[in-house]
């Protein structure tokens, strides 16, 4: 080894470049698409209107506010969206309808999710016989067209909101069950589950403390998509006259009762149909967005 060390020579041109040249790199930015922003705003607006409906300066949904079959016109709030066959305000009916449609969709969705998650956890964790039985039930439910299933239920019990919620919840269960089962299987093979078992944890504890918290976020991300589907299902049932009994308005019911006058007063269908469409669309958009954000767990 020679004594001392000599600095490596840098060519002049290199030395010069060195002072300035480091790469300029742009950072990836996460931008919400305009559609997603619109969707969240729309959902927030609908929920807000549904909640504060009683204190809004609008007529009650079952009260006549003027001549029947008025076309939408600006100026007066109650006739902003027109009136129906008996002169009730469509604006009011759409807003109160939101209460029913959203509550039915959300309650049914949540109950379906809860039931589906429990079944899915059990099937995915215990496998074997448990899995076989639960998967069979889910497959049977799924192979029934949802509408036929609901028709059957509402045909046996007379239509009412609780019956509708129960029916829709049953319809939503298998989807969540499958999701929960697949997620549970993936998480169960993780080593922290093995570690917990090796600590002497019971299966109940493992399911509740270790697996459930990891499964819930990805299921929650599917929630809006399922609620949207259930709102549509409720609409279809109402259209067939098996939905929420009148005079309580629901979006499906509004469309159904407007349909008779479709030729003369198309707005009676278009107004609730547009609101229904926008809401379902927004829920789907928002759901997709959430799913991208939160259903990543399995990959990372």
């Amino acid at each position: 080894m020679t004594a001392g060390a000599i600095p490596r020579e840098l060519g002049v041109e290199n030395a010069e470049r060195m002072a300035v040249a480091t790469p300029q790199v742009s950072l990836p930015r996460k931008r919400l698409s305009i559609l997603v922003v619109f969707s969240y705003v729309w959902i927030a607006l609908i929920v807000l209107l549904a909640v504060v409906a009683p204190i809004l300066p609008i007529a009650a949904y079952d009260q006549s506010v003027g001549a029947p079959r008025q076309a939408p016109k600006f100026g007066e709030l109650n006739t902003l969206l027109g009136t129906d066959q008996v002169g009730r305000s469509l604006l009011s009916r759409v807003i109160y309808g939101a209460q029913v449609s959203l509550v039915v969709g959300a309650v049914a969705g949540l109950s379906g999710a809860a039931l589906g998650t429990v079944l899915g956890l059990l099937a995915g964790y215990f496998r074997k016989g448990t899995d076989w039985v639960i998967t069979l039930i889910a497959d049977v439910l799924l192979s029934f067209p949802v509408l036929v299933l609901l028709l059957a239920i509402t045909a046996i019990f007379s239509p009412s909101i609780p019956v509708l919620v129960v029916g829709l919840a049953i319809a939503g269960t298998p989807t969540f069950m499958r999701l929960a089962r697949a997620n549970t299987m993936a998480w169960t093979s993780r080593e922290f589950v093995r570690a917990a078992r090796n600590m002497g944890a019971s299966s109940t504890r493992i399911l509740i403390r270790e697996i459930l918290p990891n499964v819930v976020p990805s299921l929650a991300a599917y929630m809006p998509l399922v609620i949207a589907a259930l709102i549509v299902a409720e609409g279809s049932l109402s259209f067939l006259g098996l939905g929420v009994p009148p005079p309580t308005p629901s979006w499906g019911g509004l469309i159904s009762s407007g349909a008779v006058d479709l030729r003369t007063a198309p707005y009676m269908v278009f107004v609730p149909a547009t609101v229904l469409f926008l809401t379902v669309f927004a829920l789907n958009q928002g759901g997709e967005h959430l799913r991208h954000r939160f259903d990543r767990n399995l990959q990372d």
Partner: protein
Amino acid sequence: MAGSGSAHLRGDAAVLSVENLEVEYHTAGGSFKAVAGVSFDLLPGETLGIVGESGCGKSTTGRAVLRLDPIANGHVRFRDETIETASHQRMRELRRDMQMIFQDPVSSLNPRRLVKDIITEGLAIGGQGAKERAAVVPELLEQVGLPPERFAEMSPRQLSGGQAQRVAIGRALAVRPGLLICDEPVSALDVSVQAQILNLLEDLKSKYDLTIVFIAHDLGVVRSFSDKVLVMYLGKTCEFGDSVEVYERPAHPYTRGLLDSVPSPEVEGGFVGPALQGDLPSPLNPPSGCRFRARCPMSQDKCAVDEPAMREVRPGQYAACHFPLV
């Protein structure tokens, strides 16, 4: 003697004794024995290194000892308990005395829980209240070298691999086990962090009088950490003995080949001996006789017919080979 023999077992003095252990997996391609007659034992306070190439059944052996994988055949004795027949209830109690640390530190921590909850999980399962647990968190974190103020409230996603492995070690030691099975505890870590974890384990081992089964594929790591070493090949045992002696004078041709495959830049060509030829055979369809025979430079006719059993080749050193290197 169907398996590779158990002549190297040391009898009642052992804390853990595994005899002719077999573990079977059922896959789409058929059933096979991932562990096919493995025996080993540990004296109190001893560290046994298990080495071998990927798929030879090291992890499966470790898990089967804790009955995390079902034991198909053989006997596992821990202290006075027979593991393969213990009731579920008894097993849950026993496992607290036999803890395991896993290869992938990140996957062995629940991403949805905080470090302080993870590290006291064993205590919670043991029935300790929230107050008592909160009180021991600082001590538990400190003993694995993590400042409690900073780490207690963190989530596993925020930890580096080395930090995550420290938490996993802390969790295992919180229940004061007598036996610790470490399944490749440093393989996923950077070289510069690996030494931190190895030193930590070494410290904790003497502090708590641990008996350790140390699974690894890195021969250098095993050498520095273990008293005894067990070499495995395709679900079988090849050689057992004092780690220094086995490394210095391997008796089994496979051990020799493994050691010769360790890069040693000091010598010309980078390796001290010739390379082993051939590929690892499929465990679904292992060779008859000696499972190593297709790759063994010493192989003879007898090797295809008779399966060799473990026998003493030098005092305290055992090899399962018809023609050991002596």
